[in-house]
C-alpha cells in the first residue's frame, strides 16, 4: 500500500497543473467574488462561508475529474489489474494522495480566507478540520464519479455524484454554523469523521468494481 501511495504521490507531484490549477482557481474565486459585488464587509462576513463551501464543492469536482482517465488510456490500469486483480489499493491511495496534495491546501486556503472575513483566529483549527473532512468526503464521491465516467465524458459523473455531495454540503454548513455560534460542533464533527472514515474505506471498493467493469 505504501509503495502504491508513493507512486501516486510521485505522479501527482509531477503533474503540476493537476494539483496547482485547482488551488489557484480556488484562490481566484475567493478573491474575485468580494471584488465583483458592491457590499459592506459586515454583510460579506455573513455569507462569505457559502462562497468557500461552494468553491470547495466545485474545485473538488474539478480536481478529481480526470483522476483515472490517464491510467485508463495509457494501459496502466491493465498492468495494475494483472498484479493486484482489483483496484482497491489504487483507488484508496489515489484519493488519499489527492486529499493530501490538493484537499489539505484547499482547506488551508478556505480557513485563511474565512479568517480574513470575520472568523476569530481561535476558531481557525475547527474550520480547518471541518474543511479537511469535507474534502475527504467530496473527493471520495467525485472520485467515484470520475471512475464512472472514465470513457464517457464528465457529465455522467456529475449527474451521478452531485446529489450525493449535497448532504456533505449541508453537514459542512451545519458544522460552520456550529463553529460560529459555539454550539454542537463536536457532535457534528463526530458525525463527519465517522462518515469520512466509512466513505474513505468503502468508496474505493465501489470504484474498484467500476474500473474493473470499464476495463472489461
Amino acid at each position: 500500500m505504501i509503495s502504491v501511495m508513493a507512486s501516486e504521490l510521485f505522479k501527482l507531484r509531477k503533474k503540476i497543473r493537476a494539483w496547482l490549477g485547482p488551488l489557484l482557481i480556488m484562490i481566484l474565486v475567493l478573491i474575485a467574488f468580494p471584488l465583483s459585488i458592491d457590499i459592506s464587509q459586515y454583510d460579506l462576513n455573513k455569507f462569505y462561508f457559502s462562497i468557500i463551501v461552494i468553491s470547495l464543492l466545485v474545485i473538488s469536482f474539478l480536481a478529481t475529474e480526470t483522476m483515472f482517465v490517464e491510467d485508463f488510456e495509457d494501459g496502466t490500469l491493465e498492468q495494475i489489474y494483472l498484479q493486484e486483480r482489483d483496484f482497491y489499493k489504487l483507488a484508496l491511495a489515489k484519493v488519499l494522495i489527492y486529499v493530501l496534495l490538493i484537499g489539505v491546501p484547499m482547506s488551508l486556503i478556505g480557513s485563511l480566507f474565512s479568517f480574513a472575513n470575520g472568523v476569530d483566529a481561535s476558531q481557525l483549527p475547527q474550520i480547518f478540520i471541518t474543511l479537511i473532512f469535507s474534502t475527504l468526503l467530496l473527493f471520495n464521491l467525485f472520485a467515484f464519479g470520475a471512475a464512472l465516467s472514465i470513457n464517457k465524458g464528465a457529465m455522467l459523473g456529475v449527474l451521478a455524484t452531485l446529489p450525493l455531495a449535497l448532504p456533505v454540503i449541508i453537514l459542512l454548513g451545519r458544522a460552520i454554523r456550529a463553529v460560529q455560534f459555539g454550539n454542537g460542533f463536536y457532535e457534528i464533527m463526530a458525525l463527519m469523521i465517522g462518515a469520512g472514515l466509512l466513505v474513505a474505506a468503502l468508496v474505493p471498493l465501489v470504484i474498484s468494481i467500476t474500473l474493473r467493469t470499464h476495463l472489461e
Partner: protein
Amino acid sequence: MQLITANNISYTINDQKLFHGLSFSLDHGSALHIQGGNGSGKSTLIRILLGISTPTKGEIKYMQPNLVLSYLGHQNAIKSYLTPLENLELIFPKAQFDNAYSWFKKLNLIGVQDETTANLSFGQQKKLALIRILANDSDVIILDEPFVGLDQATRDLLAEYLKLRVSKGASLALTSHIEPGFNCHALVLNGGAA
C-alpha cells in the same frame, strides 16, 4: 506442464462471433503465435488469457497459483510527462531497477534519459515499454504486436530474448503480423472458426 488452459471458449460482441469453441493451453517452455486478420479477435483473446475480459462461453484456468504474468499490449503503460528513467523508477522496485537500467542501456535509450517521454519517438517509447517485459522474470509472457514500431536490431534482440526465455521454461503467447523468427505453435483465428 500446462500453465494456462482455455476450454471451449467463445467470444461474441454485438451478435458477432469473434471466435468459438477454442481449446488450447499455454505450456511450460512453449510459445503460441496467435494469428488472424484485423478484427479476428486476437487482442480480445489475449485479454481473455490475462483475465481482463471474460469469455462469453467456456473458461480459462490458471493451473498454478500465483502465476507471474507480464504483458505488453497496444498501450505502452508509460507516463508521457515523466522522463524515461522516472518511468522505470515507477515500474520497477529498487531491487529490479539495476536490471531494468541495463536493458535501458542495451536498447540505446541512454541519450534520451532526461527527455520527457512525450518527446520520444514512437519506437523509443515502445522500447521503453518493452523493458517491463525484458527485465521481468515472469512465468508467462503475453504480448500483443510486440514488434510493431521497432527497428530491425531491436526486433532481433527481442526475438532472441523471447527464444531464450522460452528455452528456459517460460510460456509465451503473442500476436504479431511480423514473423517472430523462432518456433511457435500457431493458433489461427478466422472469423468465428479456429
